Each structure stands twice: as C-alpha cells, then as structure tokens.
C-alpha cells in the first residue's frame, strides 16, 4: 500500500519499490504480491488506473494500481495505529510505563 501512495505502479514496479524502501531487505515474490493485490482489490482499498503519463516503458500488458479514498483512509488509520504501537513499544523498552493507546 505504501508503495502506491506516491504514484500508481504496476506489479514489478511495486516489487522494486518495496525492495528500495526496505533497503533490499524485502524481496516480494510474484505470487505473494498478486495474492495481496487481489485481496486489496476485492476489499476496494486499491483500484486499477491508467498508465501514468511520465512512465517511460509503454507495455500494454502492464496494469497500474493506485489506492482508493477508502484505501487511503485505511492506510492512514493503520499508520497511526502502528506508530502508536511503536511508540508504546519504545516507551516499554526505555523502562517507562507505557500509556496504552
């Protein structure tokens, strides 16, 4: 989802983006990627869109995806939830009493 926030991407583009974001730690495999895409599509968190104008490779088979409004909201909520979780985890690790969200 995060990979798609800046601009629409196609399947391989997502793999590369995720790889870059994780500094090469995470290499998505094709099957896992598309299983996730299907899930996101059927939950209507993402949708298919036209090829972005700035895309240089023009391959008709490639389909591009971008988040829907709903997807965007869910993402934001999720990011917020996780950051609270992370904050709580840090506080615990620092020996302070966590203030649970």
């Amino acid at each position, binding site marked *: 989802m995060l990979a798609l926030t800046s601009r629409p991407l196609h*399947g391989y583009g997502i793999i590369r983006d995720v790889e870059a974001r994780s500094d090469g730690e995470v290499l998505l495999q094709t099957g896992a990627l598309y299983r996730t895409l299907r899930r996101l599509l059927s939950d209507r968190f993402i949708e298919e869109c036209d090829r972005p104008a700035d895309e240089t490779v023009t391959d008709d088979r490639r389909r591009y995806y971008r988040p829907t409004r709903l997807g965007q909201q869910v993402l934001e909520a999720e990011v917020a939830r996780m950051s609270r979780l992370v904050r709580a985890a840090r506080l615990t690790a620092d020996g302070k009493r966590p203030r649970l969200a």
Partner: protein
Amino acid sequence: MIEALYRALLLLYPAEFRRRFGAEMLDTARALDASRRSRRSRAVIDALHTAVALRAEYRRERRFAFTENRHMPWDALRRDVIFAIRSLRREPAFALFVAATLALATGANAALFGIADRLLVRGPDHVRDAERVRRVYVTAQPPGMGQFTTAGVGHVTYDIVRRASSAEAAATYAINDGTTGRGAEAREIKIGYASASLFSLLGVQPAQGRFFADEEDSTTGARRVAVISDGLWQRQFGRATDVLGRSLIINDDPYDIVGVAPSGFTGAELGRVDVWAPMNLLSARITNDWMRSWSAQWLSVIIRLRQGVDPDAASDELTTLFTRAYDGDEKHMREARVWTAGLGAADDGSEPAESRVVRWLSGVSLLVLLIACANVMNLLLARGARRARELGIRRALGASRLALLRMLVIESTLLSLIGATLGLLVAHVIGGAARNTLLSSIEWSSAPVDARVLLVSLVTATAMGVFVGVVPAIDVTRDALARALRSGVRGGSGRRLRLRAALTVVQSTLSVALLIGAGLFVRSVWNARHVDLGFDPDRVLVVEVSRASLAGLDTSARDTERARRRLFLAGVLDRVRGVPGVEGASVAVGLPFGNRFSVRITVPDLDALPQTGTGGPSISAVEPAYFRTMGTRLLRGRDFNPTDRAGSAPVAIISEFMARTVWPGRDPIGRCVRIGDPPGPCTTIVGVAENTHRARLVEAPKMHVYIPLGQEVGFGGAAMLVRSSQDAESVADAVRSELTTADATITFVATETLAERIDPQMRSWELGTSTLLFSGLLALVVSAVGIYSLLAYLVADRRHEIGVRLALGARVDHVAMIVVRWSIGMSLAGIAAGCLIAAALGTFMQPLLFQVSARDPMVFGSVAGVLLLVALAASLLPSLRAARVDPLEALRAE
C-alpha cells in the same frame, strides 16, 4: 524457461484468479527473473504456496458468498445460482426426477399451447383486422326436418351478399382436390378457387408477383392464372427465383404462375391450400348454370364488415336481401336466415369439435402442471427436512432467513427452468406428433416450438419455480436454527406432515380425475371404431382416377372419349380382381363417406314418402359385386347380376330402413318405385340390404336406394372399390399400376381406404385420448412417487416410535400394515375426491364422448382399482423398511 514453468504453475491457480492476473503475473515474474535478484527455487515455492493459499481463500469465500454482498443483487444472484447448481448436483436423483416431471408437464403444456394458440386464438395467418372478417351461414328449416345450418352457399347468395351495405367487401372461395403434373410426376394438391376479392378482403400481400385481378376472374373467360403457396414453391420449384411466369400443370391444364402467396397463408381457413386460381375457372368443370342455380351450394362466402357495423345488424340486412332475392322453389328457403360468424366456427356455424377438445385439453394440461407442482413441492419439503441441519448451521453462521429463502427459491426456479428447457424438447416431439397425426389437415406455418411458445414456457417456468419453491422454503426456514441445534430430533413437525399428506391426496385426486377422463375417451374411440357401419371400412380401398383433359378434341371425339371413360372402370374390374391379395372389386357412383346424391322417389299408391326426420332418400349406382366387396349384407331378395345394366329392366335394392318405413310389416320385394323428378319408369325392388352409414359415424338410419350401374340418370362420378384379403393399403400400389397401364389417359390414381375417409371424424376423440392418457399416466407416476416419498419419510421419521412399538412386542406384519394403511388411506381419499370431480364434470364432458356415459361405472371402477394397486406398490418398500427396523438400534440412536 522460467516462463514455461510459471505458465504451468499458473494452471494450479483458481481459474478466476488466473484470468484476472495471469498475464500480469507472468510479466512480473519474467522481469523479476531477468533482474536476477531472486532465486528461481524461491519463485517456484512462492507460486506453489500462493496457489494453495488462493484455493483455500476462494473456497472460504464461496461458502459464505450468499451472506455477502446483499447490496449487489446481480452478483449475489450469480453466486446463488452457482451455489444452487452445486447443491443440486449433490442430489442428482432428486434433481433429475423433479426436472423430468416438470419437463413432461411443461412440455405437454407448451405443445398444447401451440395447438390452442393456432386453433383457438390466432386463427388463419395474414388476415388483417380478423375480428371484422366473418363467414356467411344460411340457416333454414325444411318441412318435416330439423333445422340445418350450412356454410355452403350458391353463387347467387354471393351476389346478394356482395350488395349488402354493411359489408365493406365480400369474397367467395371453394377448396377442391386436384392434381398437378402429369403421369408419374402427378401429385395431389389442394386448389383454392377464389374470387379476386379474397386477397384484398383478407388484407394479405403476395410474397412475390401479384394475386389475380377481377378481370382475370370474369364469368365470360377466366384466365388460367395461378398463385402458388410458399409450400408448393418450395416443393415443386425449389424456391426458384424465376418462378413467376412459369407454367404449372393443374388438373392437366397449363396455368401461368403470377404470384407466390406468403408463407402460412391459408385463406380464411386453417387447412393447407397449394394453389389459388380464379373462381370462374370452376365453371368449366361444373354445370353451366351453377352461377344462377339455387341448388348448387358449395361455395364459402366471407365478408369484411364495415367499421363499427354490428354483426347482428349485418345479419338482418343479409337476411332481408336474401329473402327479397330468393326466387327458387323451396318455401323454407324463403324463410331462411342468413347470418355471419367468426372464421373459427365450423361448417354448421358451431364451435368445431377440435376446438372444443383442445379447450378441454388445455384445461387438462394445466391440471397436469398443477400435479407436477404439487409433486415438486412435496419433494422440496422432504428435501428441506433432509437439509434442516445445513440450513440451521447457515443460520447460526449469520445468514438471514431471507438469504436462505432466496437460496431455496432460486434452487427451485433453477430446477423449473431446467425442466422447462427439457420440456421444450418434449413439446417439440409431442406437438410435432400431434400435428402430423391428429391435426394433419391444418397447415402449421410455424414449428411446434415457436417464439410465442418459448415465451409462455419461460414465464410459466419462472412463475412455477417461485410458486413451488416459496411454500416449502418458508416452511423449512422456520425455526431452522432451533431445529438444527436440537440434534437427534427429526424435523417432521405435524404441520409439515399434514401439508405433505394433503399435497399427496391432491395429486391422487387429480390423477384419478385425469385417468377417468382418459378412460372415457378410450372407450369412446373403441366404440367409434366398432360402430357397425354396414360395411368393412378397413378392408375396402376406394380408387379414383384423374385423367387428361378433353380440351383439344372436337365434339364427336369428345363424346366418344367420354363414353369410353365412363365404361373404363367397370371394364378393368376383371384385371383388378386378378391382382394378388384382392378378394373382390366393384364400381359404384355414390359411396358412403363420399358423394351423396339425393333423389326423389315416388311410390304408386302413396301420396308421398313418410317423413323420417333423417332426410329424404339417397341413391347409388353399383356394379353387381358391390355388396360383397363392401361387406354389406343383403337381407332379402337377390343381388344385382350382370344382366342388370343400362337398358335392361330397371331394378333396385333398398335399405332396410326404407323397407321398414315405406312398407311396414310388408314385403317390399317385387314392388314398384319411380325414381327421379319427373318420375321415371316403374323400377322393381329385387332386394333389401342392411342399413349403412352414409356420411357420419353418428347417424340415424337413412332411406337409401341402389340401382345397377348404367341405369343412373343425372348423377355420375364412379369410383372403384377393391376389397383386399388383408391390409387394404398393401394392394394399393398393384391396383394403381394395373390401372395406369390399362389406360394412358389416366394422370393420377388416388387410393384411400374407407377407414381413412372416416378418420377425420375420429380425430377429436383420438386427440382427447392420447392427451388424456399421457397426462393421466404422468399424473399416476408422479403421485406414486409422491406417495412413496411421503411414506419413506414417515418411516424414517418414526423409526424411534416403530422401534419402541416393536420392543414392546408389536408384530412385524402389524407395523408393516400401518404403513400400507397410510398409503391406502391417502389414495382412498384421492379416489373419492377424484371420482366426485369427474362425476361433477361429467355433464360438460358428455358431448365430447361417443356412446359411453360420462359416469361409466366400469371406467370409474377400473381407475380406482389401478390407483389402489399403485398405492400398494408404492407402499411396499417403505413398509418393508418399517418392518426391518431394529428396536435396539432405533433406541440407541437417541
């Protein structure tokens, strides 16, 4: 390499997923592989793992599909349908039986709808504003006779009707048999001789060319022009585009083809017509004064009423015009009433027997449909009980009751649609068969399953599916949750049992009623087939020849040829008698179920013949072997012999009824009658023959006179009669070739048994019999299955109770008898109700039957017996199962 492997792996994925993402995945996998960032083994393992995971996901989603997406009806509907198919596949026997029942029931319905649509609703094709087109009838009452109505009128009447101001147009036509082609190519055809006004009156447009015009139908010199039917164009000309202007041989004369009628055009009637020709061409074939004579009455006249004219007012006008114009001799005709009726009416203005029977049968087929519905409902209730657990669990998992209802109704609708689809096949077969055999005289312009039939079937099937599905669905989804949770307790509530028993009784009732109807019709047909007609219809072949026309010969040559032709048939008798299989042969003018010639008879010492109520005497001229050939018994006196011929002393043989009527208690042999008007010489009666039916299966005895062939005056048209030792049809070919080799001027030899001439009068009974029998048997099978399934269900439901009884010492045969008693009880209720219904309907049914009471005890009794036997048979297996219940096991199951 990776691509092929990946392509293969993709096959493991759910098809839907593969279609959506397959190409993209392949693309991505290739790119990933090319970048060499990932190991191939990882890719393969990932692909396999995804396949397994996806399959699991899809399965899970499908299972709960019916609870999701309630706001997306089409998607939900699709899933429900898929689900229904899967659920029906789990019980193929059930699905198959239900679909087959519905197929037969809807099939019979669709077939009958097709027939009723043509006979009762649509009428002849290509008639514009059909409600204003009406046929003209004349009703009169001759002295001493019953009132008669006829659609056969004279040309004089047509001329009168043409002048009526209430008619926008009038037309006349006569449909005759004829031949086309010559020699071996000759075929029998139906020729419609019509006034040129027929086509414009009906409002039909030719498919090609034109119809003939008034000038071509003039009384002085009608032109030999013909409009051929679409069927003839197909058969004879292979739809050749240059057919217009070609020549067609009709009755040995060449006609110019000027037009092709549109497909399905049959004029104002429903029967096939191959060729339309100007009415006035007929005058060449009929006596010269037919246009002015009041006694030539074989034309049909139709009119188109002016817009807004009331039919009764039109009848009054027609009657007034007719009365004023009539200048004939018959007093009763001056008081005749001229009136009109719609095109659907029979020759005597009443509703035709076929229509009446079809009306009845439409009712019957609806009954069958109801039976089928009751049966399917019954089975669905049983199935609902079997699925109580499943439904309960669905409910527990969050499916709303509405969702369950929808699911069940969709299942039943699906079944019903499958049934209806198969039913269309059934309709095609049944409808086709009925048309070819029982209603062959009607031109069926469309296939047995046409668009209208299709539409009606579809609508019926959907309605039926919802109808039969809703009641059981409401029942089985009631308390589904609670019932499922009380595991071990069977789902058979008393209410549902009563509902199912009632449905079963209804089925038995309806099948009893139908079978009684079928039985009555079977007896009618049997009786009709065994009426003593006074001759042997099955073994006597009627042979009639058509010949080349005499045009082109001069007068004297024509007379010689006419005389030769008149004697020809009698001349070849010996050759025909020599044909193997021929037992006897004769020639006659005036046959039973053929041409009927009325004659005036005067008896010295009697002022007039006694009035009989069955009309005046009729006459035939016959060759000596006639009575032996026909199988008519001579009761007294002698047969004709070869010395009785033209010029010899006039003799006659009379029918028994005439003997009894004219000389009651006295011997008519040797007495003198004078034949004809003015009376001829004294004709001596030499014999008395048994009565024969002259025109109808149902007919009171008539006065009839036979005279030797050659002594007839004023009537003609001989036919040969051939009596065969076995099947009459078997000698037909041999006789035909014997005749054509004997005389080269013969263009066509028509052969048909007397039985075939009678058959059209049997059709309505045969139609009734076959349909009722089919529906009755279908209903019987369906109700047998109904009884069986209910009993099986009862036994399963009461296993516990039966076990307890057996444990307490009940005898096995006693337990089995309980089941049998249930069955007999239900069928007795059905028999009683069915008999009551049949008896009540009897009054309406009676006119359709032939010499059998609508309350015939034999039919009622045997149907009751059959149903009881069936009920016994249906209870056999369940009662055995009840007897085999093991008390220990039944109790342990709790």
